[in-house]
C-alpha cells in the first residue's frame, strides 16, 4: 500500500520540479521549491528516514525559502527569457541521463533485504549501538560517534558559510544603512499570533535538541528550528529589535563558540588519552562517556547552526535596497 503513496508523491514531486524550472517569476519558483522540499520530506518519511525528513522539512522548506526570498527582495523578481545555449545544455543533460539510467538497470530493487548495502556495515551499527553507545536512535549514534569526524567537518562547512556570508556582505558600497525597519508593526493579528506561537517554536527547538538521542532530532534540526523562531520574530518586530534580542557580538560568539565546543570535545578526548573524538574516555564508564560526548557535540552543532543561520538572515535583512 505504501508503494502507491510513494509513487504518487514522487510523481507530484517531479511535476513541481519541472514547474520550478519552467516558471519565469522567481518568487513563484521559490514557493514551488518550498512545496518540492515538503514533498521530498514526506517521501523520506515513507522511506523510513525520520531524521532526514525532519531536516529536509526544516532546512529545505523553511530556511532555504527564507534565504531565497530575502535575496530576491534585494535583486530581481523576474527572470529574463534567454534561449542561448539551450541545445548544448539538452545534449549534455541527455548524455548524463542515459549514463545514469544505464546504471540503475543492475542496481538492487527498492527495499530488497539482501542488497549489498544491508550486508556489511549497517547490521554492525544496528547491533553495536545498544552495546557500545546505548542510544535508542541509531542514526544519531552513527552521526555523532561512529562517524563523528564527518559531522565535525559538516559543522565547519556551516561555519565556513556563516563567515563567508558575513565576509562578503560586510562590504557596504556606501555607508551602512541605519533606516528604522519596523517590520509588520501595524499588523496586529500577525503579531499577536506570532507572540503566542514563537515560544512554542523555540520550546520545540530545544526539545528536538536534547531529544536527539531518543527520537528523530539533533543539533542541525534544533538549530534550524530555533533560528526559524527568531527569524519569525525578526519578520514581525523588524530586524532592529531582533538584533537587540541577539546582538551581533553574541552571534559571532555563537558561530565560533559552537564549532570550538565540538572541536574542544575532540581535543579533550585526545588529552584524556583516547584518540580524537573517542568519547568513552570522557568519564569512568565508557557508555556514560559516549552519552556525555554526544550531548556536548550536539549542543555545539546546535549553537553553531543557530548562530550561522541568524547571522546570514541578518546580513541579508539589514541591507538597504541599492
Amino acid at each position: 500500500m505504501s508503494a502507491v503513496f510513494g509513487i504518487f508523491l514522487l510523481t507530484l514531486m517531479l511535476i513541481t520540479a519541472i514547474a520550478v524550472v519552467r516558471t519565469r517569476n522567481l518568487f513563484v519558483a521559490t514557493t514551488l521549491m518550498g512545496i518540492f522540499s515538503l514533498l521530498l520530506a514526506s517521501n523520506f518519511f515513507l522511506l523510513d528516514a525520520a531524521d532526514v525528513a525532519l531536516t529536509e522539512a526544516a532546512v529545505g522548506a523553511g530556511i532555504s525559502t527564507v534565504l531565497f526570498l530575502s535575496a530576491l527582495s534585494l535583486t530581481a523578481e523576474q527572470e529574463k527569457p534567454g534561449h542561448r545555449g539551450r541545445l548544448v545544455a539538452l545534449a549534455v543533460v541527455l548524455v548524463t541521463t542515459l549514463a545514469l539510467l544505464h546504471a540503475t538497470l543492475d542496481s538492487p530493487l527498492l527495499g530488497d533485504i539482501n542488497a549489498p548495502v544491508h550486508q556489511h556495515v549497517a547490521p554492525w551499527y544496528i547491533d553495536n549501538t545498544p552495546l557500545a553507545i546505548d542510544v535508542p536512535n541509531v542514526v544519531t549514534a552513527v552521526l555523532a560517534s561512529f562517524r563523528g569526524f564527518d559531522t565535525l567537518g559538516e559543522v565547519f562547512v556551516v561555519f565556513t558559510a556563516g563567515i563567508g556570508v558575513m565576509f562578503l556582505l560586510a562590504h557596504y558600497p556606501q555607508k551602512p544603512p541605519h533606516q528604522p525597519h519596523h517590520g509588520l508593526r501595524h499588523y496586529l493579528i500577525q503579531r499577536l499570533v506570532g507572540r503566542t506561537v514563537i515560544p512554542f517554536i523555540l520550546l520545540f527547538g530545544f526539545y528536538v535538541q536534547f531529544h536527539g538521542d531518543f527520537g528523530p532530532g539533533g543539533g542541525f534540526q534544533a538549530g534550524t528550528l530555533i533560528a526559524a523562531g527568531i527569524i519569525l520574530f525578526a519578520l514581525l518586530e523588524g530586524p532592529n529589535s531582533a538584533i537587540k534580542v541577539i546582538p551581533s557580538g553574541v552571534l559571532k560568539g555563537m558561530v565560533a563558540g559552537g564549532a570550538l565546543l565540538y572541536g574542544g570535545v575532540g581535543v579533550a578526548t585526545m588529552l584524556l588519552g583516547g584518540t580524537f573524538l573517542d568519547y568513552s574516555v570522557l568519564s569512568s564508564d565508557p557508555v556514560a562517556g559516549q552519552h556525555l560526548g554526544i550531548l556536548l557535540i550536539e549542543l555545539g552543532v546546535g549553537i553553531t547552526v543557530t548562530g550561522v543561520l541568524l547571522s546570514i538572515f541578518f546580513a541579508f535583512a539589514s541591507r538597504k535596497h541599492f
Partner: protein
Amino acid sequence: MQMGVDILSWLLLTCGGLFVLVGGIGALRMPDLYTRMHAASVTDGIAPILIVGGLILQAGITLASIKLAAILIFLLLTGPAASNALASAAVLSGHRPGNASEMSAEEEA
C-alpha cells in the same frame, strides 16, 4: 463499539478529503486573487479539523492523539493569520478587488 469509531473516523476523513478537493478546485476556478484565497482557506480551515479529528479517533487515547491535537491547534492558529497577511499584502501592493475582466487586464499589463 470499535466498529462505530472506525466508521465515524472513516466518515470524517472522507469529508476532510472532499473539502480539500473543493478547496483545490476553487483555487483553480476562481477569477481573481481574493476569491481564490477564499477557496484556498477552505483547505486551511475546515479540512484540517475533519482530517485530524478522524486521525485522533483512529489513534484512540494515546500520546499520538495529544500530539495530533497540538498540530491541529497550531494549524488553526497560523492558517488564518497567514491568509490575513497575504490579503493585506495584496491590498498594500495595489491589488484592487475589482471585477474579473479589469483584473486580468491589469495583470497582463
